[in-house]
């Protein structure tokens, strides 16, 4: 921390000299007072991993629009998690964000020792007083809408999901997708595969190929790697996390998009205003708050029957005005 103390000493000296000397000093002290909020993020996976990337993208946006200073560390495994969190906490960062799924207890323990710093982590469990807030990708609503599309598109009445592992977040999306498909087509059977990893595209692709062989003809790419299999076999796929249309324009019907911007904006403004509390920011990922949505149909806009598009538009409106609530089912899904 040598450099920091040296810097602050220099800054103090400069401030003193200037306030004593000229009117220009006023500008300088103002600038120092309005120092940018320093935000750090700790990610367990590389930032290409779509889940983490959504947080990263939103923080990048905050860098531009909310004037924060943003740094991040990627691929921080559980063994290093505490060290990296502490480095940021002691390095003058006032808000530390990230995903804590692989290090839930570690993250909470570290946060406890820095009560003046705000910690906001993606988590499958609850917030902790005084300073550990959580968020999660509550994107079951667009997943449900995507399921409705899948239910309409399937010819063999079989839709599939290739997902990471049976954690609440993943189960929620997978079950919502299946429920949406069943609502419009009660004959639909849902298949699920878990690859046991957050980021193993070759494995996800192989799992998708196995599903397609077993009759799946619309597939939900909860994980990265599935769209490639669907493109190879010529069946429609639904992307996840970001608009993955560009990966295979003819294959990707739409994507279940998570937008972390409303969450990041809320958290950053709270910290800036000094009113941050350890709360669950999950609501900010709901469709109503703009935290999630169904991506545009792009190439598929002309291919989707207008009956299906109308159905989706109507259900979307119902979700937004609160008259339809997508059921939340976090039990481990089972293949049928």
């Amino acid at each position, binding site marked *: 921390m040598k450099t920091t103390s040296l810097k602050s000493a220099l800054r103090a000296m400069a401030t003193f000299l200037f306030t004593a000397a000229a009117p220009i000093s006023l500008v300088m002290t103002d600038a120092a007072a309005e120092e940018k909020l320093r935000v750090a993020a700790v990610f367990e*996976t*590389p*930032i*290409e*991993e779509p889940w983490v*990337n959504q947080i*990263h*993208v939103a923080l990048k946006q905050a860098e531009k629009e909310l004037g924060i200073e943003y740094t991040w560390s990627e*691929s921080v495994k559980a063994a290093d998690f505490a060290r990296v969190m502490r480095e940021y906490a002691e390095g003058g960062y006032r808000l530390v964000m990230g995903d804590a799924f692989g290090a839930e207890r570690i993250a909470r323990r570290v946060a406890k020792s820095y009560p003046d710093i705000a910690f906001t982590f993606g988590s499958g469990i609850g917030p902790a007083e005084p300073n550990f807030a959580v968020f999660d990708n509550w994107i079951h609503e667009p997943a449900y809408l995507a399921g409705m599309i899948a239910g309409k598109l399937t010819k063999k009445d079989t839709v*599939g999901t290739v997902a990471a*592992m*049976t954690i609440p977040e993943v189960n929620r999306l997978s079950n919502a997708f299946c429920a949406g498909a069943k609502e419009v087509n009660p004959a639909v*059977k849902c*298949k*699920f*595969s*878990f*690859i*046991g*990893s*957050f*980021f*193993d*595209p*070759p*494995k996800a*692709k*192989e*799992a998708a*190929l*196995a*599903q397609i*062989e*077993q*009759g*799946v003809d619309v597939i939900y790419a909860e994980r*990265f*790697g599935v769209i*490639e299999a669907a493109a190879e076999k010529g069946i429609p796929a639904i992307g996840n996390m*970001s608009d*993955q249309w*560009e*990966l295979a324009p003819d294959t990707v019907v739409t994507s279940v998009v998570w937008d972390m911007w409303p969450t990041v904006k809320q958290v950053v403004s709270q910290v800036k205003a000094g009113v941050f509390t350890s709360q669950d920011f999950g609501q900010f990922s709901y469709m109503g708050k703009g935290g999630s949505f169904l991506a545009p149909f792009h190439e598929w806009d002309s291919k989707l029957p207008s009956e299906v598009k109308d159905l989706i538009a109507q259900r979307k409106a119902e979700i937004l005005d609160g008259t339809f609530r997508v059921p939340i089912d976090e039990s*481990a899904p*089972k*293949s*049928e």
Partner: protein
Amino acid sequence: MNQCTNTHEACTISEVLEQVFQVGFFAAMIRVAAPLLFATLGEMFSERAGVLNLGIEGIMLLGAMTGFCAAYFSGSLWLGIAVAATTGIIFGVLMGFLTVTLGLSQHVSGLSVTMVCSGLAFYGYRLVFGQPSQPPNVKAFEVLSVPALADIPLLGPVLFNHLALVYVGFLLVPLAAFLLYRTPWGLSLRTVGENPYAAASAGVRVAWYRYQALMMSGALFGIGGAYFSLAQFNAFTFGVISGRGWVCIALVVLGRWDPWRCAVAALLFGAVDALQLRLQSSGIIDLPYQIFLMLPFVVTVAAMAVLARNARAPAALLIPYRREER
């Protein structure tokens, strides 16, 4: 297809058989085994010469990265494969310097090479591509059906409807066996791995043979890694190898340091992996998914315990050769 679920045992078994033993399963088995085969044969060569090459995991990852970069910028997938192999050779030489020239612990050297390579792969990728939101991709290898043979019912789609690299991988098996058992070079290599002092007294340059074996293994690791970023998948991502290199170490033992048996071991692993994915999504057997995911590893370990119990590793494996000492 699922009418008899949860009724009685016999029905379930026939259902499983019906769902699993399809053309797609056998094709998947070969597809999953192919990249492992490259790396397993590579590891077999280096161990046959007396060096355990634990650089495998890292070299595969780095090969996947460099191969992808070369293919991405040149547009030639085969150039990507060549670059991946070259990358492997370079780190094979490094491995040789550490374990042969310096005579350091093979375990420690191998793990260090893996760490260095993983780090380099990560760093190099960021250097070249920055921080893309979506990994850049290439047009991956396409399926190459062998004319006439691919039309044979059942056998055709299983054996002759694959990516070019798959054929290369399986053709390497007889080639490796020929090299190892039928050439003076192979005899020298095996002797170096069994008794380097005897080999040396017969005029074989032990260090040179070990270097050659390590370069060969590196090249094959590189190709095995690039298989994932250029053939199995169309992009380099950091999870692209995720432990598959370590699996090959076990496959060499299960394959008793013999090319043919190594191929069978890789196919066994591929078969169980393809099987577990199909069982998971079939919905016939209601078990936690972790059990399915674990199957290929459990079967490999079990097979190793039963079949490779009496297997004898090359006698000089792990022992550095120092000319002056005896």
